[in-house]
């Protein structure tokens, strides 16, 4: 190559520079076609959302019938005839193994075994043992999966309850319903994704607090919305006297214009969220009365749930409302029925509690089934822990009490991708320790998320410098109970 040529090549002028540059830009543009989100790259959180659900969900909705206070597994689903045989005899140390007790019985000088006051029969294809306290539940046994090997870390009500609902014993994490609302959003955008219904039996009660349905560190729209038994099911939703719906609409439109202006000047996304929440509340004003009105329910449905379901605030009424909410696309309906804390006077009190919940719980399953909704709705029934196989206080054959027992207890699940007609896990013949297939709370939570199409290890939220999950750093999906 001649020197001139070389110099000419090095002699860069503007025209040359620009024409080469245009080539460069052209190829940049061409290359960028292969990166579809080059200019609208999403944040990690947005990517998380795009990935949800992680796989095809089995269940679209959850109804959680929480039996608050911890119903005794030994009077419901865990049949232990040995306890009746050895009534009053001392709990063997080889079984207790010095494990932790609550302060209420740790001072007891003796731990006399106490058998169930109520009889047990076998039902269904799985020949599941169910106590005589639950005649209606025993009829749906082919539709449910009884897990007899649940265990938890906490030994007192509030930590146990909080643990069950939020995956941690201290109350600063989001509740399960809030996680699902965060992960999957609302199905029906005219109703909250997470609703809470409370009822109370006559038995010894333990309080429930709104921290159980908290959004924790998640956005406040994921908080559970409590439906009360009063004339105003959702507080502050109705318009004040004298305000028509048209007026409200006008007011919201004007407000939205103002909010829009403010958004344009400061671009805070929270402002848009606020506009949307006002709009949702406006739609809820018609959607909520529609869903809480039971006057159009067929007689057979009312009879199935029992006449209690016509008394607002009862467990039966809440079950019926739960079905209506779920049918209307509410992602997570959380019920609490209080009064299961039978430290004493157990036979008498548990009879009342069982009567409160048995018929309506079974009716809920049948009702979902006859509408073809059971396949896509996961129903969970259970308390926060179990009760001891020994008596708290003085033992009498027809009057005794049981203390808290976190090492083994029973719950049942139905519908939404759970095997039906199944009994899972086993406790020893004293009903004290689990001998087969233990299910920890985190496993349970992982399984619920799995059924909803979520990988529990991937549903995270970054807060205070670390990523949080419902299952913390634990949890294994219980594959054996998946249908």
């Amino acid at each position, binding site marked *: 190559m001649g020197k001139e040529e070389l110099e000419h090549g090095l002699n860069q002028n503007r025209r040359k520079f620009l024409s080469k540059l245009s080539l460069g830009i052209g190829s940049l543009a061409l290359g960028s076609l292969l990166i579809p989100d080059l200019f609208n790259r999403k944040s990690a959180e947005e990517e998380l959302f795009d*990935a*949800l*659900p*992680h*796989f*095809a*969900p089995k269940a679209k909705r959850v109804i959680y019938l929480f039996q608050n206070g911890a119903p005794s597994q030994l009077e419901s689903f865990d049949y232990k005839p040995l306890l009746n045989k050895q009534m009053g005899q001392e709990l063997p140390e080889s079984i207790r193994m010095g494990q932790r007790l609550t302060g209420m019985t740790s001072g007891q000088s003796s731990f006399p075994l106490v058998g169930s006051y109520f009889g047990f029969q076998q039902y269904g294809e799985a020949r599941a043992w169910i106590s005589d306290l639950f005649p209606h539940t025993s009829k749906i046994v082919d539709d449910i999966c009884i897990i007899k090997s649940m265990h938890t870390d906490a030994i007192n009500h509030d930590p146990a309850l909080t643990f069950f609902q939020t995956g941690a014993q201290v109350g600063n994490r989001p509740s399960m319903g809030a996680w699902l609302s965060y992960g999957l959003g609302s*199905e*029906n*955008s*005219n109703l909250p994704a997470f609703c809470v219904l409370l009822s109370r039996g*006559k038995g010894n009660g333990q309080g429930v607090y709104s921290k159980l349905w908290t959004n924790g560190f998640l956005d406040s729209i994921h908080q559970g919305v409590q439906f009360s038994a009063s004339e105003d099911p959702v507080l502050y939703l109705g318009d004040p006297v004298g305000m028509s719906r048209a007026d409200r609409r006008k007011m919201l439109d004007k407000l939205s214009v103002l909010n829009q202006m403010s958004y344009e000047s400061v671009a805070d996304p929270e402002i848009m969220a606020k506009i949307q929440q006002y709009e949702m509340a406006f*739609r809820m004003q*018609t*959607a909520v009365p*529609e869903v809480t009105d*039971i*006057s*159009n329910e*067929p*007689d*057979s*449905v*009312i*009879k*199935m749930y*029992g*006449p*209690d379901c*016509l*008394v607002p605030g009862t467990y039966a009424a809440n079950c019926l409302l739960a079905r209506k909410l779920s*049918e*209307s*696309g509410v992602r997570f309906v959380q019920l609490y029925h209080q009064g299961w804390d039978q430290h*004493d*006077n157990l036979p*008498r009190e548990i009879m009342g509690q069982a009567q409160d919940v048995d018929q309506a719980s079974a*009716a809920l399953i*049948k*009702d979902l*089934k*006859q*509408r*073809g909704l059971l396949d896509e709705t996961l129903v969970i029934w259970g308390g926060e822990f179990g009760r001891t196989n020994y008596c708290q206080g003085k033992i009498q054959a027809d009057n005794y009490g049981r203390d808290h027992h976190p090492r083994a207890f029973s719950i049942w699940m139905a519908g939404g991708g759970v*095997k039906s007609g199944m009994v899972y896990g086993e406790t020893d013949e004293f009903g004290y320790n689990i001998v087969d297939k233990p299910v920890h709370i985190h496993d349970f939570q992982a399984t619920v998320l799995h059924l909803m*199409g979520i990988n529990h290890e991937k549903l995270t939220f970054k807060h205070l410098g670390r990523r949080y999950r419902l299952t913390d750093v634990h949890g294994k999906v219980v*594959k054996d109970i*998946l*249908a």
Partner: protein
Amino acid sequence: MSLKSRILLILDYFLIIMHSLIIVLIIGQGRMVFPPLLEVFGRMHPLLLHFPIVLLILTAFLFWFPDSIPYPAFRKNFLLFSLFFTGLTVIAGFLLSSESGYSYENIKFHQWTAVAVFWLGSIWYWAEKKDNFLTLKLLPTLTLLLIIVTGHLGASITHGDDFLLEPLKTAAKNPQVALEEADTYTHIIKPIMEQKCISCHKASKQKGDLRLDEAKFILAGGKSGLSIDPTDPKESLIFKRIHLPLEDEEHMPPKGKIQLDEEEKQLLSAWILESAHFDKKVTAFDAEDKFFSLAKNWVESRQKVNYDFEAADPKKIKSLNDEYRLVEPIAPQSPALAVRFFGKKEFNPARLVELKKIDEQIVSLNLSHMDLNDEDIKVIGGFKNLENLNLNFTGISGQALEPLTKLRKLKNLSLSGNPIQSEGLDIIQKIPAIKTVYLWNTQIEEKEIENFIAKNSQIKIETGHRNEGEAIALNSPFIEFDNVIFEESEKITLRHPIGSVRIRYTLDGTEPDSLSMEYKEPIILKESTEIRAKAFASGWLESPSAKKLVFMAGIKPVKYNLVYEPNEQYKGKGVETLFDLVKGDEDFGSGKWLGFQQNPFEAILKFDANQTVNNISLSLLTDEGSHIFPPYRIEIFKRNSSGQWENIFQEKPEQPLENYGKQMILKNISLKNENVISSLKIKLSPVSALPNWHPSKGSQAWVFIDEILIN
């Protein structure tokens, strides 16, 4: 001789040496044994092969454009250099192929094209002296084409047959199969092995003399033993090796290769442990078998993703989504869509018609509680891939279902709560793939359904809960009013949550019956009254009666005071609380109640002139759980003419035997004789020790009072 010339001369000789060596290798193929050092050289084949490809391409360019280089010797030397690497590569290839795991059958094409490249290249080198069409155009081009073919064939050996074109035909790779048709091996085990095992265990590469690409080879096993041991499944090598820890030398797939995921591992294990059948249908397994449930999950989860239609335009889907209509994929990455409507009032037929834009993709449609007409069902009949349809409580009749018979894939149909009669069954029968129908709360007779089930055992009919015969009691009506204690008049409303009931009531304290007054409009009361009401409805037993008392405010004393102050926590507004006509609520801490525990309640009331008192009502609260009991004793005194307190009434109320919860009690005391009174003393003594049944037995009970009414 310069160094350059010497090197070129050596290379020239090497060319001849390599030719001879290759001829030996061809002849002795399969019979030769090499020292380990040569095996190492053989394994360099994958590295070396890149050199001849690049170099020969460059050489071809040099020959095509002879003017581009300053002196002609350069291109010849370059060609020689390229051929040197070509020869090395070919030799290394021969050495590598002699290792176990490669059969001649599978590498022969690659081998011969490679040798051909070398020969052709050499001819080119020797013929180079003349600049003619042969050396400048034909030989370069042929060599180039041949080396591309060789490279491709080689890649097929290591990466698999379809490696190059695979991205173009992935769709066909995961054929959708229904559970009923799924074969154990073909549809479940084979796809897993194809993805994770056969890259090393196939015809062209048989590591450990094992092939896993066909059933007969799997059964034959390999060098280390049986991959599946029918007599002792736990000894099967596949089972054992996939469960070894990853660090283990023998773990399969080897560290660094794509591993089996948990589900695949479980499937393979369950398949081997449960007899490892090859031709068995999945459905032939027992429902209890672990393999069955795993396989079912496997097939169904793939079904949800794999459909043979294209996904709809995401913009279209987005435009169809609004507050009252949800359109979303049934699973991530699935082209199939589920659609759901909300809000009865917001629904109109046009919104259903809009879905025609995605008529191919809709597989699940939920219209429950929307008002539909026959036209709407015709629209639904056009959604040809529909599998699940929910029409609960949409008001449609049986005949209207006719268009659904066109839906060839419709499996689940929910028709609960519709006025469907028996003709609906005839139409359902004609839906080709129908599996489950929900017919609860329709107008079809039970008998007809029984007949239908007898004829169509493959269709599952869910009729749900029927409970017409069994009458149960209604719950009591609600009696509602604003004030328990009213001054002039009070409006009473009766209400029942079931619309169809009749409420009958009495105002004289007698039990209502079917002949009592029927409630039509609110009742206005102008005196203290006991209201009782009962609910009646056909098909139900009458409700227990509801009972409420309302009181007309009575005489207010001119002066009144308490002998003992109420407990500091429950002191309300002091003695005023008793005559403020404000009824306390269930919250005894609300300040509307007075609470007494240590001291008895003792109130002295003075009247203006001498009053005739017939009736005294005490409004009390009990809540056993909170230690609030009825008074142990109620005493009433009047001041007689001599200024002494004279007892005119004394009673020990009945004590509760268990915890009844919060109850508001109006203790009504009728004074026997006509009493003309100037001053009155009322004393309520709390129970001193809670009864034995109470958890806090022995401690002092409370008395709570909020109002005294005197008439």
